């Protein structure tokens, strides 16, 4: 995809943020971040706890105001007026960590409708969006009428994500969406996000600890360390820097690690292998007398 020719949907200019400024608890969470996201991109943000990634994403929809620096959504500076941050929130949907703890309504339907209602839409439009969002996260009509507190953990998480998707944001940001889910729940949830990405052509930014998750779908990976983006590139480019990642307390996906070792042993493998499926397919291809370098 030739993303460089298009206008970025999100652009940040040297944003800085310090928590509890002027007290003994002062902590510089962001020390100058330049970032761009283009329409339709799938971006993974990785970094250790405290590297500033959660603080960073809260700047992208105007929840936090940077100490210095600018944030543009669709070319508009989101702090140029008082109303602008709220408008940005409808364009940039942000799903927090453990979003199921934000559910409050009597029924799942009403909860998903909270966002669209705040946008001032009419009832038919709200209904359409709620059902569409529920479909994206695989919640059936029977569940929509139930109390969110009667659902299972995974269903509750998906209902909360639907609450953000229902606003039809052009950019969907998720902070560790799979934390605490079982492997099946995790795969289902990631598939739901992929569906929204594919069908709506939305930009997806996913914050994660898991290299596997970042490698799975992301076209670009940004690595945060000490409040800065220290690496920014395709998964191939980023995971090539295994030593640098390890120095930051991060790793590379296990499959990529195995592939590197196998390559060192002389097995001809292509260099964009990060998932178990990738390596399995490549090895089967070699076993069948093919070339492991072809994708």
């Amino acid at each position, binding site marked *: 995809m030739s993303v460089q020719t298009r206008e970025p949907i999100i652009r940040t200019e040297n944003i800085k943020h310090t*928590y*509890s400024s*002027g*007290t*003994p608890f002062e902590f510089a969470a962001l020390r100058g971040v330049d970032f761009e996201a283009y329409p339709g991109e799938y971006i993974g943000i990785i970094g250790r706890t405290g590297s500033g990634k959660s603080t960073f994403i*809260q700047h992208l*929809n105007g*929840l936090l105001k940077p100490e210095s620096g600018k944030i543009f959504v669709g070319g508009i500076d989101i702090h140029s007026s008082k109303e602008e941050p*709220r408008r940005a*929130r*409808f364009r940039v*949907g*942000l*799903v*927090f960590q453990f*979003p199921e*703890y*934000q*559910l*409050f309504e009597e029924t799942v339907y009403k909860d998903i409708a*909270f*966002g669209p209602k*705040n*946008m001032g839409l009419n009832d038919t439009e709200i209904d359409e969006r709620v059902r569409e969002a529920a479909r994206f996260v695989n919640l059936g009509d029977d569940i929509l009428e139930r109390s969110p*507190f009667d659902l299972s953990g995974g269903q509750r998480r998906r209902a909360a994500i639907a*609450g*953000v998707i229902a*606003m039809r944001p052009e950019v969907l940001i998720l902070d560790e969406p799979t934390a605490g889910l079982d492997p099946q729940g995790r795969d289902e949830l990631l598939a739901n996000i992929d569906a929204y990405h594919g069908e709506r052509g939305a930009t997806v930014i996913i914050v994660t600890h898991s290299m596997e998750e970042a490698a799975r779908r992301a076209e670009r990976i940004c690595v945060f360390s000490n409040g800065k983006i220290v690496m920014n590139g395709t998964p191939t480019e980023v995971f090539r820097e295994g030593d640098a990642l390890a120095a930051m307390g991060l790793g590379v996906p296990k499959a990529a690690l195995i592939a590197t070792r196998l390559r060192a042993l002389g097995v001809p493998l292509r260099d964009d292998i990060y998932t178990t499926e990738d390596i399995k397919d490549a090895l089967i291809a070699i076993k069948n007398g093919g070339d492991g370098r072809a994708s």
Partner: protein
Amino acid sequence: MLRDITLGQYFPGNTVVHRLDPRTKLIMTVVYIVALFMAKGWLSYAFMACVLFGMIFASKIKLKTIAKSLKAIAIVIVFTAILNMFFTQGEVLFKLWILKITREGVLMAVKMTIRLVLLISGTFLLTYTTSPIALTDGIEALLNPLKKIRFPVHELAMMMSIALRMVPTLIEETDKIMSAQKARGADMETGSILHRARALIPILVPLFISAFRRADELAEAMESRCYHGGQGRTRMKTLGMKARDYIALLCGAGAIAVVVFANLLL
């Protein structure tokens, strides 16, 4: 932001004031309050102000921090001052309809303001320099004699320390939930009072649910570590009075004496 609230927060440090025994600090706070209410003339107020500044200086708490916490209760101070100004009988300075400002009223308002500012700054110094755990330990130790009349001292102290411990957690949680609902376009800053009250529901419901969940988890965690109240419980950190504590208490007694003396002078 909510997390910038400094009311009753603890600022870690290693000054003499920080290292005093919590019991000493609690007693000193009571002494300070008593002395403040005994103060009548300007001289004694000036003396109390000096005491306060001395304590602030010794604890290395920034004046800015104290000013910030005063800002939070500015309304109470202003309200008290206005009430005193209008409703004290005496020589009339200014009259408008049934409202009149008296000379005594103005003096009273000024004194009340000084008294409140000194009172609040001084008592906040206690929580600024004492960790919540030390504070409840101190309270428990001071209330210990009440055990004889079967007053549940340990339980009270435990409840206090849990409550204090949960304050920052709940503030953080509220912050998080507010951010999450704002991200869905919740508008809490504009509209009528009714509208704003309604806008609190999406915050309060998740907050209550999570508070109950936390309480439940904490109870289970305590039970699984065999917590069974204060009976036969020993402490990791035992309180001990040092020379500096006795000196501080002597200074406290001295301060009261000075105030009594100053009242006689002016």
